[in-house]
């Protein structure tokens, strides 16, 4: 079977490197799924969740804080501003960050600050969603790839 070489790097570290069957990522123009033999692509990503399906069917969930994705040949490189695997996410911190951001958005603030708070809110929500999903998945005995997963 043809596989993709996937690499997820942030400025601080390499978060993931390995073979995958598909990559599902939130781009600015909507969610995309990258499969082998994809056309060369360069796109920007929104804060959200990235799903990697490994050749054995296992899924890896990551929360990213925006960035870029480059697809060339059978290589996928994600340059993320921040990236965490589901088990690395500090749920408590993310929840606090969300509350802070929501509080900021309620107040009357300048456009720049609004954009900043909104971005922070998106990042926090992406983290929480990924952490939540990973928890649900652990409870189920047989994780099936994408089965019953509502696409957003």
């Amino acid at each position, binding site marked *: 079977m043809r596989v993709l070489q996937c690499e997820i790097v942030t*400025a601080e570290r390499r978060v993931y490197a390995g073979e995958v069957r598909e990559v599902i990522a939130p*781009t*600015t123009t909507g969610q995309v799924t990258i499969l082998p033999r994809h056309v060369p692509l360069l796109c*920007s990503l929104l804060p959200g969740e990235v799903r990697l399906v490994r050749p054995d069917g296992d899924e890896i969930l990551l929360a990213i804080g925006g960035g*870029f994705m480059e697809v060339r040949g059978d290589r996928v490189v994600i340059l993320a501003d921040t990236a965490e695997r589901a088990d690395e996410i500090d749920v408590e911190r993310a929840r606090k960050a969300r509350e802070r951001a929501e509080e900021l958005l309620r107040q009357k603030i300048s456009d720049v600050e609004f954009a900043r708070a909104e971005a922070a809110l998106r990042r926090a929500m992406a983290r929480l969603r990924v952490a939540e999903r990973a928890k649900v998945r652990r409870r189920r005995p047989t994780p099936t790839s994408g089965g019953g997963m509502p696409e957003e």
Partner: protein
Amino acid sequence: MATLREIRRRIRSVRNIAKVTRAMEMVAAAKMRRAQSRTLATRPYAEKAWQVLVHLALQRTATEAMHPLLASHPGECIGLVVVTSNKGLCGGYNHNIINLACEFIEHAPMPVELITVGRVGRRAMMRAGYHIRAVFEDIPDLPGLMDITGITREITEDFLSGHFGEVYVVYTRFVNTMVQIPEVARLLPLRALERSRSAVEAIQRAAETPTLLEYVYEPSPEAILNALVPRFLEMQVYQIMLEASASEHSARMVAMRNATDSAGELIDALTLTYNRARQEAITKEMVDIAGGAEALAKMRGRR
């Protein structure tokens, strides 16, 4: 001549100082290694980001027009980021940076405004009476990407507003544990593409890979470039801060090792003095006793 007790007390205090400096050396060594490994960890991202920039540069010929951070423009003054440490006890580390910064300011064609990073630099620059625009003192020993966003934002805003025509940084480049070189580098306008342009031409000539151009861009090359260029700057500042941190810690490590060595020498010298003094005291006592005994014997013999 110092008394025995005084010498003993000095030996003890020097020994304690040596313990402290040795501990500081160990800490500095550990921090230096961590800073180094972080510098290495930034490499994959930097390489990838650079490749993407190269691809984007292939799309256009006039790279300067691509993004305001890449274009030079006249400004009111030059910005200089001075990277020093928060703490001293690191040999000539800060001194070298401050000298280089002063030299830069003296020879600059335009007035220079400073952005100081680290307490030592801020203090020195204020004493010298230079104009300071921004002060950063809460950068931790091992900076993360989040810790330096303030610096990037500051220089970006002042550059884009036209206040700064150019932004330079003076920092200590880390070569290895023994060698760190203070140097001045330009941050803005970004140099990245000047370098990559020649690389692009080399790639085109060598491989003639038209596939490089067949990208699908979402949403558009411009949008991606707009998002990528500021991150590139951030990346560069981050790497500079990490190098400065590695340099600081290795400078401190070397300084502390020298201090420990000198303390050892001092202890040896003091021990020698101490033993000599002790020997002298004993000899004097012996002479006294012997003299006394002889005098007694003489008296006894006369009787």
